[in-house]
C-alpha cells in the first residue's frame, strides 16, 4: 500500500514538471510585468529591482533557479507583498480556503448522496422529478451568477446572513460561500448517485437480500450504498479540482481572504512567484487527492488490490 502510494507519487512528478513549466512560461508571456505601476519607475530602479529578483537572467536560467528552489520547498519571495515569502502567503490563505472547500465538499456529499439515493428509491415519482430538476438547475447556473443571487436574497432582502467577509470569524459568515461553492457539486453528485443507485438496486444481490427478508432501509444502507458510491468516489478527484477553481471566484465575490484571492490578485499584479506558488501548491494537492481517491476505491471495492 505504502509502496503503491510512493510509486504513484513519483509517477506524478513528470505531470507536475509540465504543469510548472507551462505556468512559468505562460505568465511571463502575458504582457506587463511585476513592477508596472501608474507611475513609471526610473529605469535604473527597475533594473536594480529586476536584478534583485533575478529577472535579468535568461529565461531558462530563471526556470532552473525556480525549479531548484522548489526542490528545496522554497517558493521564493512575493513580488507584490514585499515583506512576505510565497510560502507565508500560502500558509495564511490556505487554512481559510481549506475550511471553505472542505465544508463545501462535505456538504455536497451529504446532500448529494442523500438526495440522489432518495430519487433512486422513488424513481419516476414527484420526489425524483423534484431532485432531478433542482440538480439540473444547479448544474446550469454558473457560480458567479448563483453567488450574487444568494447574497441578494439572504443577505440583502432577508438580512439573515452577512453578505461577505469573515467578520468576527463566526460560522455564520461561511454559510453563503459554502453553499454557493457546494451547489453545483451537490447537483452532480445527486445525479451520479441516482444513476448508480438505480443500477445497483436492480442487481441480483439486492434481490437476494430482499428474499432474505431484510427491510428496504437496511438493504440500501448495507448492501447498495457501498457499490453505489463507487462512481461518486471517483468523481471526488475532479470535484476537488472544481471546488478549487470555484473557490477562486467565490472568495472574490464574498471577500473571503483565502488562497483564491491571493491567486487572483497575484495574476492581476503579475506577481510571478505568488501565482506559480499557488499553481504548484494546488497541483500537488490535486495529485495527492486523486491518489487518496484511488486508495479509497480499494477500500470500497474488495476486488481492487494495490501492492
Amino acid at each position: 500500500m505504502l509502496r503503491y502510494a510512493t510509486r504513484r507519487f513519483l509517477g506524478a512528478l513528470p505531470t507536475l514538471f509540465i504543469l510548472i513549466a507551462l505556468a512559468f512560461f505562460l505568465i511571463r508571456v502575458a504582457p506587463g510585468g511585476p513592477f508596472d505601476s501608474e507611475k513609471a519607475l526610473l529605469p535604473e530602479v527597475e533594473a536594480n529591482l529586476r536584478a534583485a529578483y533575478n529577472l535579468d537572467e535568461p529565461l531558462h536560467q530563471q526556470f532552473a533557479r525556480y525549479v531548484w528552489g522548489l526542490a528545496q520547498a522554497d517558493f521564493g519571495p512575493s513580488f507584490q507583498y514585499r515583506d512576505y515569502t510565497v510560502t507565508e502567503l500560502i500558509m495564511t490563505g490556505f487554512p481559510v480556503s481549506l475550511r471553505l472547500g472542505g465544508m463545501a465538499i462535505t456538504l455536497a456529499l451529504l446532500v448529494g448522496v442523500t438526495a440522489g439515493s432518495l430519487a433512486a428509491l422513488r424513481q419516476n415519482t414527484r420526489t425524483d422529478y423534484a431532485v432531478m430538476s433542482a440538480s439540473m438547475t444547479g448544474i446550469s447556473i454558473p457560480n458567479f451568477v448563483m453567488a450574487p443571487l444568494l447574497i441578494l436574497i439572504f443577505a440583502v432582502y432577508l438580512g439573515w446572513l452577512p453578505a461577505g467577509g469573515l467578520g468576527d470569524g463566526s460560522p455564520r459568515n461561511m454559510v453563503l460561500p459554502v453553499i454557493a461553492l457546494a451547489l453545483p457539486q451537490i447537483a452532480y453528485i445527486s445525479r451520479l448517485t441516482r444513476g448508480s443507485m438505480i443500477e445497483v438496486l436492480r442487481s441480483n444481490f439486492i434481490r437476494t437480500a430482499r428474499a432474505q427478508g431484510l427491510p428496504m432501509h437496511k438493504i440500501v444502507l448495507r448492501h447498495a450504498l457501498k457499490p453505489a458510491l463507487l462512481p461518486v468516489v471517483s468523481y471526488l478527484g475532479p470535484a476537488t479540482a472544481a471546488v478549487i477553481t470555484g473557490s477562486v471566484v467565490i472568495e472574490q465575490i464574498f471577500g473571503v481572504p483565502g488562497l483564491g484571492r491571493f491567486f487572483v490578485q497575484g495574476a492581476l499584479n503579475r506577481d510571478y512567484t505568488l501565482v506559480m506558488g499557488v499553481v504548484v501548491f494546488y497541483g500537488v494537492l490535486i495529485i495527492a487527492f486523486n491518489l487518496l481517491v484511488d486508495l479509497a476505491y480499494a477500500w470500497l471495492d474488495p476486488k481492487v488490490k494495490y501492492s
Partner: protein
Amino acid sequence: MSLLEVRNLHVRFDTADGEVHAVRNLSFELDRGETLGVVGESGSGKSQTVLSLIGLLADNGRASGSAMFDGQDLFNLSPGALRSIRGRRISMIFQDPMTSLNPYLTVAEQMVQVVREHDRMTRRAARDRCLEMLEAVKIPDAAERLDCYPHELSGGMRQRVMIAASLLLDPQILVADEPTTALDVTVQAQILELMKDLNRRLGTAIILITHDLGVIAGLCERVIVMHDGELKEQGNVRDVFYRPRHSYTKALLKAVPRLDAEQVERLAPAADSSLLSVDGLKVHFPVRTGGWLGEKRPLRAVDGVNLDLRSGETLGIVGESGCGKSTLARAILRLVPTTAGNVCLLGQSMGDLDKRALREMRRDAQVIFQDPLASLNPRMTVGNIVSEPLRTHFPELGADEVRTRVADVLRRVGLSGRELNRYPHEFSGGQCQRIGIARALVLKPKVIICDEPVSALDVSIQAQIVNLLMDLQAEFGLALIFIAHDLAVVRHISHRIMVMYLGRIMEVASRKALYETPHHPYTRALISAVPIPDPDKERDRDRELLPGDLPSPVDPPSGCRFRTRCRFAQDRCRTEAPQLRQLTDSLVACHRAGEAVLV
C-alpha cells in the same frame, strides 16, 4: 394439510405493449419435506410463480389468487409480515451465485445480518451459527471462508454459501431457481447431492425450478410441467417421466438429448486426407498475479494439443469451464495469438500466412459463437450481417447476386429469406443462432467451429439447431468442431470426441468407445455427473463425485493435471505427465488407465 397450497394464481405485468400474463390459473400444493420440481422452458412463468409467492415480483407485476402457507394467505399479508416469512420460513437461492451474492461484503457480513434480522442474537452467536451452516454444506476450511469475499471463492463454493445462507434459520421451504444452471456438470453433481442430503437430514421442503429434466429426475418426488404460463401436467415424478399425458411433456422428454439414448452409430466418413491438423498447440496468456503490478506469469489455457479433422467429420470437444476448449477454437482460427505449435488447414500451415493469405484462408474456416444475440451486431440488419462475409471475400459480386445468395442461405437454415431488413433483437434466440449459422455458411466453408452453439438455448430449440447442423453437414460435407460442456448434446452430434482438462487432452475416442468404455478417470467422472432424465436409472446410478474445484491454470498441478482430483492418483502421477497412448479404441493420457482397479 399441505404446507403450501396455491390456488388460481395469476401473474400479470403491465408493459408498454399492454398487459402480459406470465402465469395463468395455476394451482398446486407442497407437502412438508417434499421435493417438488417445476420444469419449463424460458418464458414459461416458472420463476415468476415463486417470486410472486414471496412478494418479489418486479414493480409492474401483480399477482392474484391465493397462496395458503401454514394457515395464512401470502397474498393478504402486510409487507412486514411477509418479510418475516421471507428468508426465515421460505428462503430462496438463485441461478447465478456470483451476482446473487453481494461482491462488496464478506461471506460473514452477508450471512450474519440475515440471522440477526430474524433472531435476537449476539454478533458472536450469529457468526457461530453461520460457521456451523457453512460446515453443514461441506465447505472446506469453513472458518477461513467466512471472511472471504465472493470473488475469492469458486462458482461451486459460492452456490454452497448461498445455500448455507438460505438455510440459516431452518426454513420450511427452500426455493431453488435454476441452482446449478451456471455451474459445471461435476460441480452440479456435488450441489445436487448436497441438496438431496439436506432435504433428508433437515426435512426442508424443496421447490426446484429448472429446465433440466435430468436434474428433476434425480431429486424430485413430484413434478409440475409449465408452458406459456400454464400448468400442463403435474404428478408423481415417475408418472410424468414414464407415462406423460400431455403432448407438451411428451415433446419435451423427446427433445432432451440423453446419455442413455440408443446410439445410432454415426459412421465417420472414409478417411481421405486430413482437412485440419493441429500439432502441439499452446496458448499462454500472461496474467498478473498478486495485484496491480505483480509478477506476470503465463496462464496455460491450451498446453500442447494435437488433433486431426477429416472432411465431413464432427469432432466434439468437451470439458469444464476453464479447460481451454474455447481458447483452442480461437487459436485454430488465429483469433488469439498462439504461443507454440502449428495449425494446418488444407495442407497449408497457418503460421506462415501473411494477413492477406490469412483472410483468404478464413473463407474456408468459419465459426459460430455461444451467445447468439450478443454475437450479432445489433445495429446491422440481418441482410448486412449475413452478406458481410460475401462482400468481403467476393467484392466482385453484384448486389442482386449477393441478395439472392443471402436469401438462399437464410432459407437453408430454416428462415424464410424475407428477414433481410430486420434487426437481430426482433428474433428469438434460436432464430438468432440460425442467422449466425447462415453467416458462417454463406461462404461455403470447409470447416465450421461451433463454440457452445446451443448452450444458451432452450432444450427444444437446442435439438432443432443440432439437427440443422447435422443436415448441413450431410448436404455440404462440412467438417465440424463442436465445443460444448453438455456431454449429451456432444454425444448426439459427434463422430469422435476429445476430452480436455486444464489445457490438455485427457482422452480422444470415437463416440461409441468414449461413452461405452471410457478409460480416463476424468471422462468417467464427467459422464457419471450428467443427470439422466429417467427417475429410476438416475437414482440407481453409482456416481463418481469429483471432489473439490478446478485448480488454477496459472499454477497447474505437476505431472498429471488431473491428479489432485483423481482417486487413483499415485506417486508417478505427481512426477510424470502422462502422454496420450493407444488403449483399445481410444487415446488416453493416464498412467493407470486400463488397470483392473479402475473398472
